[in-house]
């Protein structure tokens, strides 16, 4: 080793008593510069928001609580919930299909996922909306046999149904992958133990595998819900009166484009923020049994209270 020891003889030898209490910290001049730059930018932003009349804040204030906007929000939320429900149910079925012992079923479910993930959801929406051009009539009945129900595609596929199909079937493909990953992450020993106790496949899935897979499924599903909420704005292209379409239809009349878009932004931000809080809470709940700590209650979490450090049951 050729490292030179720069310490003096005295420092090396001397074991002088040192107390580190009150030691000065190293300075970080760059942090100061960065903070200063940010402060200046923030001041400029506030100045812009206040002085630029094009924001037309009074218009924002006028519309932010308007009942017509409320209807748009209702459609947006309804679509998010229904399309997400379609996506989750479809995703569970597809995931179970992809893990099945039946090769044909596995292949078919894989094909579905490949197909729906490969086409932009906007294109799918427009396609469903125009389905009548491909199939003028739709009927349900025995394949190649008698029909029970049939009707004009144009009457059956309303814009709302087209939106639900477009968003929901696409979502199912993504949820399938999330759910499959969660199911595969559960230790196969769990299934064995359940089978050894005489539990059926269905019961093992419901009581043992699924609850444990939830820990892996819920966090990405939360971000899927948030993405879905935002993706519903795409339905404005098929003339469904969601939040975005509603503000568009107003500013097409009044030309107050910017303030109305701001109204939409504020509502989207508010709803996604609520969803983020909900998602984090659900995530914690599903961590139950995964750590030695007791689960934290909702209000403790929402109010950012620190969790207690002691385990629930001392062992």
């Amino acid at each position, binding site marked *: 080793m050729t490292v030179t020891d720069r310490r003096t003889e005295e420092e090396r030898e001397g074991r002088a008593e040192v107390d580190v209490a009150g030691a000065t910290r190293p300075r970080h001049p760059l942090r100061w510069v960065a903070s200063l730059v940010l402060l200046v930018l923030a001041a400029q932003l506030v100045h812009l928001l206040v002085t630029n009349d094009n924001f037309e804040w009074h218009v924002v204030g006028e519309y932010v609580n308007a009942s017509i906007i409320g209807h748009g929000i209702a459609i947006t939320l309804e679509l998010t919930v229904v399309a997400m429900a379609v996506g989750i149910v479809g995703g569970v079925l597809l995931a179970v299909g992809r893990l099945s012992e039946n090769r044909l079923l596995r292949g078919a479910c894989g094909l579905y996922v490949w197909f729906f993930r490969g086409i932009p959801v906007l294109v799918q929406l427009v396609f469903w909306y125009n389905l009548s051009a491909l199939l003028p009539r739709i009927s349900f009945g025995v394949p190649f046999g008698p029909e029970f129900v049939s009707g004009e595609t144009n009457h059956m596929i309303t814009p709302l149904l087209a939106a639900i199909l477009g968003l929901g079937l696409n979502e199912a493909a993504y949820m399938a992958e999330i759910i499959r990953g969660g199911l595969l992450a559960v230790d196969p020993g769990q299934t*064995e133990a359940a089978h050894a106790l005489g539990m059926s496949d269905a019961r093992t899935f419901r009581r043992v595998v699924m609850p444990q897979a939830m820990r892996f499924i819920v966090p990405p599903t939360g971000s899927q819900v948030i993405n879905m909420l935002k993706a519903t704005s795409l339905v404005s292209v098929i003339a469904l009166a969601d939040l975005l379409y509603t503000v568009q239809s107003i500013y097409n009349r009044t030309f107050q484009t910017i303030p109305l878009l701001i109204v939409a932004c504020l509502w989207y931000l508010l709803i996604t923020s609520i969803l983020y809080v909900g998602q984090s809470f659900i995530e914690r709940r599903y961590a139950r049994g995964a750590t030695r700590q007791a689960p934290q209650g909702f209000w403790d979490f929402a109010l950012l209270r620190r969790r207690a450090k002691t385990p629930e049951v001392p062992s």
Partner: protein
Amino acid sequence: MTTAMVHAAGVRKRFGHLEVLNGIDLDVAAGEVVVVLGPSGSGKSTFLRCINHLETIDGGSIHVDGELIGFRAEGGRVRHLRKREITRQRREIGMVFQQFNLFPHLTVLQNIVEAPTGVRREPSARAREHALELLRRVGLEDKAGAYPRQLSGGQQQRVAIARALAMRPKLMLFDEPTSALDPELVGEVLATMKSLADDGLTMIVVTHEIGFAREVADRVVFMDDGLVVESGPPSQVLENPANPRTKAFLSKVL
């Protein structure tokens, strides 16, 4: 055969081209405790898993309490059983795993009552009472509300034993129940198993605990390369093995 709790005859099992069981013959009488010894990879776990049909055998037959496991033979034809019937057969056979495999999202009590209430449709109050009695028996009555990860390995394994007993099995299978435990925790699990043996439960135990075999087993079976190569009372197999492979194995573990 009518008196045997387990009657295995010529049991064969392959994984692809790998022959794991090459014709196992083993009879276990009701109330008997059989310890299975053998080197790693000799097929001990596979054999246990065949007994409750976690693996489907490729040849031979296994009867438990007179009932053919996994198949039905009628009029000279043998057919695979449906899943529902296999599930029913497994309820009579308890199994304890090396890795415990408790359900981590359920409390100790919920782990134990899950199968009796869900599968046997026992009323939950009765299942609960039985579970608490079993917890007392394995010395863990104060842990009913704990989650498995809050317990030590030895405690988890004792809960796993209670969980298997809750189904009131005729037969218990133990696959290296102490191999995943720290040495100081092995004793508590073996003591629990000994008390079950004293109560007359029929048990097949795969273990490397020679002391347990000597003290508790009615019979010791030595397996190698998918065959039972030696079988007899512990004094004979452990002290005076006839087969050279048994000798070689014992000289390593003793």
